């Protein structure tokens, strides 16, 4: 081994990795044979390669066997070609790119020339995958002993990193480009000695009449030789001395849409410097063709080229050397809102302007007289009061003799442009103000790198510290709750696809405190002139509080509904106008109401026809007056049957007393109603059936009385009188029962008679005294009172009151009846010294079947319907009944009757 080692060339005995690999490889198994047999030419080249730090590669011999050095080794990466391709035929080692490099190798070998390739993309297999790798490399021929090219020597540098950096830079340039694209001046950036067009904005493209794709990356001479001819020397000048160059009204003939046009430009060439070297030129230019042509026309012809001037859309004015307006074109009058040319002719031009602009205008005029052209923007109100912004160009007019004795002023109405500028400025200010005063966070998403800019408040809102930097799109979506995330993404996408505003509501979990918040985001995409989105920018608001409040409201509403639905009643609420806005499920189950399209329903379809008119009128009245609504009525069921309901509705008022809602309920009282009806029918039938035998008994009694009278049998007469009295009592009870029945079924009929109330009371009292032997009845007579009323019914009232007094007073106590006239009322009082009535009971004594209980639960005979009948009769006469009573002292019942009956209630 030592021998073989010493026989190796010195360069292979070194410590380099590749030196070791070369000497350790079994070359005898390859087409090259053992190292000892290698020609000197190969060994010489290998010596250079192995010892060099610069990356080098060698293809050798007909098989193009590969060698490389330590400098080259990193470019092969890991898990790739190294070290297997050492000594491998080229086609085998580089199979994936052989189609690229084989032609190059062949070219070098056959033409014996060196090649140069800069930043070429040659993807190779390394690091376990096929990677895009950029290279700058040179191939050159290597000669063998016979002087023939026998191999290819490759020096190579990997430039992937550099290319990527450049690409990034270009991307940044892209943003810059977007900014420039809307600028109203033309901008073109040329790079390098051959004036490659690197950047061009939309204004420049428009002037040039070309597509961006046809220009970018191409030298000016290639895309426009005619312009190049003129511009190239200027660009070269700037490139050379690095000084900006300004040229006004440069005449440039060029091809536009297949036609040769001549335009005039004001140009500024500005050098672009990189690392102290001028590497390019930025040309900024404005098209001044119109004003130049106009002026030229004027200069060429003292009479003016009328058509040129008059057809000009701007306002053109010619001023004499004193500054007096001598000419204005038609469009000028129009846009300046001047009705008659005489209004301004002969006036100093600056006097047409407002005080603030006057000095500027005058200065521009004076400069023009000196031969200088001025452009300015100023504000002026037209004679009609329209505020307008003007772009004004003031130029001298040179006559044939080369003297300046006139000035031309061209004014362009730029109000709309100004306004939009101001609007956006204002908008920005408003937005800033709004975001600062409200708890609003602002954000901007840069579409090219998905960087996210957040305002401090936004960061805080989202639980990031306000000094956290370099936030990305991921920082936004990673804290959105999983349930909301997909939807949030969808919204971002949707706004882009539909070109609409972005609006989204979602929940986030703040990373700092894990609290869940509701967020609402609004935003808008901004696009470049190619229609690509540049940024998505907008605001976010924390709406957790509102959401919670809404939720609470919903919950309490749900509570209310659940409660309402669990009730056996129909409950609902209506708007102040009576439109039903809420009702419980029971309404659906119960009523045969047809729902209206908006989910509400109306009463008219479900209230029984017999009650519907009364119901509707009553409801209408309540809506007008705000009174409580109480009605008994039948309601249609789902099966079409009707059931009796008690409907009550109260107005709910706000703190100012205005009705904001009506709350109502309907309770099923059908069973009660039916029960009452059965009771009524029973009473009616019973009383009728009872009266027939009583009629017989009473009749026979009277016949007997007659007989006993004739036979003068006093004992029997006495018995029969008592019997007759008892039968009369029974008759009265039955009559009262019938009366109650009739009152309750609404069947009481009140007749109208005219009679003397005094007489009636006197007769009745006297009649009753004969029955009430144990009490002293007295009647204090008064003035004669004539009254129009139902005589029988009024008698009934009197009888009921007096018999009541008798019933509830101890024997021998006085019962006083009195009568008086008060205004247009007759007041009838019945006073006793009986058991009296409790305050609590006083209200209830007029209810039917109510009976005052006496001492020790003692009850008094009767149905307890007397006072009910009295009250009903008095009410039917339009009168009132009052009671004044003290327990164990006695009672006074006072009836007030109108002297003349009004409309019956």
């Amino acid at each position, binding site marked *: 081994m030592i021998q073989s080692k010493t026989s190796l060339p010195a360069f292979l005995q070194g410590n380099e990795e590749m030196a070791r690999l070369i000497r350790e490889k079994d070359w005898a198994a390859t087409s090259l044979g053992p190292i000892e047999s290698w020609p000197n030419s190969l060994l010489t080249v290998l010596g250079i390669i192995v010892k060099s730090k610069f990356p080098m590669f060698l293809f050798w011999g007909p098989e193009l066997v590969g060698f490389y050095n330590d400098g080259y080794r990193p470019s092969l990466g890991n898990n790739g070609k190294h070290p297997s391709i050492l000594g491998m035929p080229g086609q085998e080692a580089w199979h994936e790119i052989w189609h690229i490099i084989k032609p190059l190798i062949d070219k070098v070998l056959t033409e014996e020339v060196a090649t140069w390739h800069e930043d070429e993309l040659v993807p190779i297999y390394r690091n376990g995958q096929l990677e895009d790798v950029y290279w700058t490399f040179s191939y050159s021929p290597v000669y063998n002993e016979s002087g023939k090219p026998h191999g290819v020597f490759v020096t190579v540098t990997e430039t992937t990193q550099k290319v990527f950096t450049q690409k990034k830079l270009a991307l940044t340039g892209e943003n810059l480009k977007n900014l420039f694209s809307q600028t109203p001046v033309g901008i073109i950036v040329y790079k390098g000695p051959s004036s490659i067009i690197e950047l061009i904005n939309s204004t420049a493209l428009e002037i040039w009449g070309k597509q961006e794709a046809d220009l970018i990356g191409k030298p000016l001479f290639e895309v426009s030789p005619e312009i190049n001819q003129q511009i190239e020397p200027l660009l070269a000048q700037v490139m050379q001395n690095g000084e900006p160059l300004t040229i006004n009204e440069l005449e440039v003939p060029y091809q536009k849409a297949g036609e040769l046009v001549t335009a005039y430009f004001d140009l500024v060439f500005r050098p672009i410097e990189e690392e102290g070297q001028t590497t390019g030129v930025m040309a900024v230019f404005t098209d001044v063709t119109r004003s130049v042509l106009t002026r030229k026309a004027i200069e060429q012809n003292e009479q003016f080229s009328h058509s040129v001037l008059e057809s000009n859309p701007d306002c053109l004015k010619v001023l004499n050397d004193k500054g007096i307006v001598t000419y204005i074109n038609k469009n000028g009058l129009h846009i300046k809102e001047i009705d008659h040319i005489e209004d301004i002719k002969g006036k100093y031009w600056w006097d047409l302007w407002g005080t603030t602009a006057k000095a500027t205008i005058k200065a521009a005029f004076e400069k023009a007289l000196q031969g200088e052209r001025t452009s300015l923007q100023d504000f002026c109100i037209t004679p009609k009061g329209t505020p307008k912004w003007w772009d004004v160009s003031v130029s001298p007019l040179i006559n044939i003799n080369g003297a300046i004795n006139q000035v031309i002023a061209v004014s362009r109405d730029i109000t709309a442009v100004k306004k939009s500028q101001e609007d956006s400025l204002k908008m920005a200010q408003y937005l800033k103000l709004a975001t600062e005063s409200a708890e609003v966070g602002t954000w901007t998403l840069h579409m090219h790198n998905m960087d996210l800019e957040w305002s401090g408040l936004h960061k805080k809102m989202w639980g990031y510290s306000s000094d956290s930097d370099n936030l990305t799109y991921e920082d936004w979506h990673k804290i959105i709750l999983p349930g909301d995330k997909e939807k949030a993404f969808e919204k971002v996408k949707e706004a882009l696809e539909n070109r609409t505003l972005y609006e989204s509501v979602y929940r986030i979990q703040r990373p700092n405190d894990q609290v869940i918040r509701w967020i609402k985001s609004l935003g808008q995409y901004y696009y470049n002139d190619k229609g690509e989105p540049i940024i998505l920018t907008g605001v976010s608001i924390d709406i957790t509080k509102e959401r919670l409040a809404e939720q609470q409201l919903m919950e309490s509403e749900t509570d209310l509904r659940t409660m309402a639905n669990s009730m056996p009643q129909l409950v609902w609420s209506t708007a102040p106008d009576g439109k039903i806005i809420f009702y419980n499920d029971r309404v659906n189950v119960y009523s045969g109401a047809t729902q209206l399209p908006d989910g509400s329903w109306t009463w008219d379809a479900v209230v029984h026809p017999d009650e519907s008119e009364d119901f509707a009128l009553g409801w209408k009245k309540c809506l007008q007056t705000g009174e409580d609504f109480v009605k008994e009525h039948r309601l249609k069921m789902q099966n079409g049957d009707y059931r009796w309901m008690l409907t009550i509705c109260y107005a709910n008022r706000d703190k100012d007393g205005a009705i904001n809602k009506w709350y109502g309920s309907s309770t099923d009282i059908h069973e009660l109603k039916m029960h009452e009806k059965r009771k009524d029918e029973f009473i009616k039938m019973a009383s009728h059936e009872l009266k027939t035998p009583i009629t017989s008994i009473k009749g026979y009694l*009277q016949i007997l009385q007659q007989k006993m009278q004739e036979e003068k049998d006093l004992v029997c007469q006495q018995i029969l009188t008592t019997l007759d009295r008892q039968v009369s009592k029974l008759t009265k009870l039955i009559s009262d029962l*019938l009366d109650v029945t009739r009152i309750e079924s609404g069947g009481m009929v009140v007749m109208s008679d005219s009679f003397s109330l005094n007489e009636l009371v006197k007769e009745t009292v006297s009649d009753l005294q004969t029955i009430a032997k144990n009490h002293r009845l007295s009647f204090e007579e008064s003035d004669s009172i004539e009254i129009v009323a139902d005589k029988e019914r009024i008698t009934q009232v009197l009888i009921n009151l007096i018999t009541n007094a008798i019933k509830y007073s101890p024997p021998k106590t006085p019962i006083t009846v009195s009568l008086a006239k008060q205004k247009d009322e007759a007041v009838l009082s019945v006073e006793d010294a009986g058991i009296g009535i409790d305050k609590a009971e006083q209200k209830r004594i007029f209810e039917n079947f109510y009976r005052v209980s006496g001492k020790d639960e003692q009850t008094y005979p009767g149905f307890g319907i007397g006072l009910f009948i009295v009250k009903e009769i008095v009410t039917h006469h339009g009168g009132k009944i009052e009671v004044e009573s003290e327990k164990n002292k006695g009672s006074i019942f006072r009836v007030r009757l109108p002297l003349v009956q009004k409309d019956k209630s």
Partner: protein
Amino acid sequence: MQAYPIVLLEDDEDLGQMVVMMLSMKGHSVLPFLQIEDFWGHLEQNIPQLIITDMLLSGADGREICKELKAAEKTKDIKVLMMSAHPDAEASCLDAGASAFVHKPFDMKYFVGKVNDLLDSQDL
């Protein structure tokens, strides 16, 4: 002169008997009928001065009978006195053509007075 100037139609036998007694005591001849058919049969041969009838009869309405009497030429001049225990009967009975109405139960004096009035007015 008819044997019975007063005819009574009352399906309650006791009540009918009572009315007959009451009026007989005051010198009136009354022929009572329990059945409507018998009543109509009697009227074919006889024209009484006064017919007293209850409003609610078993199987018939006194008001309909009254209307029928008033509709026939032969019977239209016969006075009809109607009685009822029904509280609202008076108006409808008078509407049906009755000359007078008496509420049940009634006072003998009042009832006989009414009958006399009706017979007297006919004599005029």
